[in-house]
């Protein structure tokens, strides 16, 4: 395996992705990620000089909506699936200390 994934990398990616793996999971994930990156690096065999990255497969442009209010008050529906609600708002752990 060419790509050796360090604990620091795993921790960093965990912060980005908001995931926390158990020690066993982490070992496994390091192996998996290393192997996947090795595999992805196969793309380096290709010469892509001067090739524009293709984010959208079709050249469709300019899809717009007119500035007209169509939505009505659906507060109840919006909150229906929330794990925590108070005063018509989503309840979350305190964001500032």
């Amino acid at each position, binding site marked *: 395996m060419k790509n050796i994934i360090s604990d620091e990398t795993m921790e960093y990616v965990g912060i980005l992705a908001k995931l926390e793996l158990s020690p066993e999971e982490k070992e496994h994930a390091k192996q998996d990620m290393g192997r996947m990156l090795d595999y992805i690096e196969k793309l380096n065999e290709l010469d892509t000089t001067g090739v524009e990255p293709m984010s959208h497969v079709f050249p469709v*442009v300019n899809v717009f909506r007119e500035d007209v209010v169509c939505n009505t008050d659906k507060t109840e529906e919006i909150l229906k699936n929330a794990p925590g609600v*108070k005063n018509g708002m989503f309840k979350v752990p305190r964001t500032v200390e």
Partner: protein
Amino acid sequence: MAKVYETVIGLEVHVELATKTKIFCACSTEFGGSPNSHTCPVCTGMPGSLPVLNKKVLEYAIAVGLATNCDITRYSKFDRKNYFYPDNPQNYQISQLYLPICRDGFVEIETENTSKKIRIHEIHMEEDAGKLIHDEWENCSLVDYNRSGVPLIEIVSEPDMSSAEEVITYLEKLRLIIQYLGASDCKLQEGSMRADVNLSVREVGAKEFGTRTEMKNLNSFKAIARAIEAERARQIELLEEGKEVIQETRRWDDNKEYSYAMRSKEDAMDYRYFPEPDLVPMMISEELLNDIKANQPELRTEKQKRYKEEFDIPEYDIDILTSSKHLADLFEETVAICKAPKKVSNWLMVETLRLMKEEEMEAEDLKFSAENLAKLISLTDEKAINSTVAKEVFQELFHHNIDPVVYVDEKGLRTVNDEGELRRVIEQIVNDNPKSVEDYLGGKEKAIGFLVGQTMKQMKGKANPDLINQFLKEELLKKA
């Protein structure tokens, strides 16, 4: 020898656009609804929901770009900026990094003795976040997504400013341009215009920039000025002590007049931008650009020119009236009704400005309507009220936008034009004040003033002063 430092400031200005609906869904952008009442699956990040761009957002962004001398990016895209925070329902913000809609513009500002170009690096479109409210009782936070998805443009300047005055002049200039375009009301207090200040210091003459910090939560021009002074001092102190300035985001607390770092181990500041696959790119055609240019509202200099041609009012008035889009609109709308530019200008220039100063208000916050101001002017024209009463009515108009006609009638403030009653009162006054009559007839013309005052008092202020004068003189002549 003590080192001399200069301050280098760049600004990131967020402006909420004045669209009726949000940037990616058909929810209202109106202020003041109950929590989460202006939301839908799109602006609350429900699974499977998809964004569709509000065309007006693009048009406003381009209009601001054109008015600030930017190049319009002909092929522009949205990108996702990924970070977790509860006010951000998808945990990514749809913004623009790689191909922002406007680039390389500038705004010219007048400082004390020179004018200076502040270059604009870019303007991009993005969505606003929801609002977090902290619940002290339960030690939790509550999220309201009514503001989530409200369209913003972010105007990023180059680090071309060197003082708080320059920063504020630049912001005032930007605000005026955007207000004139109708793209936003730009109220700092209400957050429809927000400025983040990027600041660094360096020794005068140094080639390299110093390490900069970014300051957030600046809700007024005063806060901006105070924060700039404090941050400049903080950075210089660090350097003087041989310490380093750390590149970081700091939050300004205007009550404590102190900023603190917003660092956390859990904020990696690695936003993993990539092109938004749910939105298609924008291709700005010549046609669309010309359309926007053609529909561009009249900007300040054009307006000033037109006022000079159309209205017979002093240049000084024109400058003040056009210094705010709202004031200029109020002026024009009132003139359109009452056709008396000079009188309208007087009300706005004198009484309005006086009360604004008294209340520490901005022109944008004026509540009274053109219709009601026009009504007040016609009441005075018809001499239905005298000038003292008119000022009293204006106070009410200014604060509560009352209908002057209704108000005057309800309070019984109309000038009494019943000649019979007035003559009776005057006859009485003349009879009751022989001394003054004598003085007047003896050549002391000023003595009539006392008699006018007495009459007005008797009439409870509602008499027509011209008539009082006329009838008094007639009555006095009888005594001669």
